[in-house]
């Protein structure tokens, strides 16, 4: 899959933003006044900034509002509803904390649940696709949610929770890489089933339908980045989990906290780039590629 910067930026930062909102909504930490204001500004910049970025990959962003209509069948539509619901409820909750110094617990808890629901629905957009066996597994939602919670805990300054969640997220990430590498082979889809010619003999793509490139090859058959994928996996896991865990194990200071957050974000961006670049869409089989 083509690793579009807008989608990488969107999933990474909205994941972090909604993760932070989850912890704020549950009252970890309970903050009021200007401190609360700062926390909410960071969370909203990330969550809303990510959502805005996601509209950049649309062919017709001016019609984006229509994406709210198909919540009965479409995960993308459900994501839109959850995101708006979470942002509105958490906005009201934040209003109480910042301007009235009171904690409207119901708004906070509901907002926290909707924040996680948003991350879950985002992950389901990818998980539902049978055409991309690497994504079509139960661990994909777990990966998105564990990363969002780990990043949220880190941003919310919940060091003990962050330590545990970072390790869990790292392990889930590792597992999805190992399982993902086997997914296309295990899916049962190959050039023989794609063409239906397998019972005659070995199928080889002889000539593509066009001399130039096309939308399908650009969008679905991205092979350039896979060359360094093993090195990038080590870098991603190191920055995402190992470095922040080591930093959090040191005596806490704000500088160390900021360094842990920056390292984590860089790691998640790398892992998210790999999530797209490594994903093989079965349409590539028609071109004899993967």
């Amino acid at each position: 899959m083509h690793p579009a910067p807008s989608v990488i930026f969107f999933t990474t930062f909205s994941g972090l933003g909604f993760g932070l909102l989850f912890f704020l909504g549950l009252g970890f930490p309970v903050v009021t006044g200007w401190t609360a204001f700062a926390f909410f500004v960071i969370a909203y910049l990330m969550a809303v900034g990510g959502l805005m970025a996601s509209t950049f990959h649309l062919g017709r962003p001016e019609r984006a509002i229509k994406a709210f209509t198909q919540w009965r069948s479409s995960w993308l539509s459900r994501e839109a509803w959850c995101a708006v619901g979470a942002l509105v409820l958490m906005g009201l909750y934040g209003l109480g904390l910042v301007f009235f110094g009171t904690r409207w617990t119901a708004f906070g808890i509901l907002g926290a649940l909707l924040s996680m629901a948003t991350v879950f629905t985002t992950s389901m957009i990818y998980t539902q696709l049978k055409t991309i066996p690497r994504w079509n597994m139960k661990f994909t939602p777990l990966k998105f949610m564990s990363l969002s919670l780990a990043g949220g805990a880190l941003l919310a300054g919940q060091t003990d929770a962050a330590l545990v969640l970072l390790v869990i997220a790292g392990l889930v990430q590792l597992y999805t890489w190992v399982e993902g590498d086997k997914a296309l082979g295990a899916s049962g889809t190959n050039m023989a089933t794609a063409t239906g010619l397998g019972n005659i003999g070995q199928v080889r793509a002889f000539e593509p339908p066009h001399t130039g490139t096309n939308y399908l090859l650009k969008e679905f058959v991205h092979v350039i980045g896979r060359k360094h994928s093993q090195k990038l996996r080590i870098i991603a896991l190191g920055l995402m989990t190992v470095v922040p865990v080591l930093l959090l194990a040191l005596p806490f200071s704000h500088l160390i906290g900021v360094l842990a957050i920056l390292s984590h974000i860089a790691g998640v961006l790398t892992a998210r780039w790999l999530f797209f670049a490594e994903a093989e869409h079965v349409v590539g089989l028609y071109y004899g590629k993967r």
Partner: protein
Amino acid sequence: MTTLPAKTEKKLGLVIDLDTCVGCHACVISCKGWNTENYGAPLSDQNAYGADNSGTFLNRVHSYEVQPAGDAAAQLIHFPKSCLHCEDAPCVTVCPTGASYKRVEDGIVLVNESNCIGCGLCAWACPYGARELDQAEGVMKKCTLCVDRIYNENLPEEDRQPACVRTCPAGARHFGDLGDETSDVSKLVAERGGMDLMPEQGTKPVNKYLPPRPKDEMPEFDVLAPFLEPVAEEPKGFLGWLDKTLEKL
């Protein structure tokens, strides 16, 4: 609505004969020609006369070489591919706006372009590469089964079929109701063992592909041939000398 109809009244679709297709790409051209100036937005090209050209097509013809086991000759098979108008179309249910839909009356999968936001998710969900996002218009384009031809009473009756079927010089493309067991296309599928592409994806495609017929065995040139004197296997004269000399080296 992007939920799929439980049942469609007809299952209009194509039957493509891989035995007959000669790979001339006439269907590709007639498809682009008709669909760029009729239903929906035109099918744009980018940098059409430059080195790095690309464009939107609703029908594309691949060519595959298939090598049977043993020493049988390899076969070259031309393979046209367009939307298969699946019964369980994954492209429809993922659509967030309801732009993608499957028609109850005839099972054709269409895109309402004025509702399409160009998110591309339907193309991600399609295993066949049947949908292409038009780079000029920013909306998803796909085969309409020439919905603006097949019911068009302004056209002579023989032209009321998809442009690709109408143009195919080899008669490799057939159009009809695959939900009706008595239709010509259904009979053809039954007779020739028509198959689904990627059945394991669970899309239940309506379009069927007729597999290439088994190749004939090469007949013996002459019934008496095995009884004839074998042609000299040992070279004589100059070639014989050359052979011996080269052996010695």
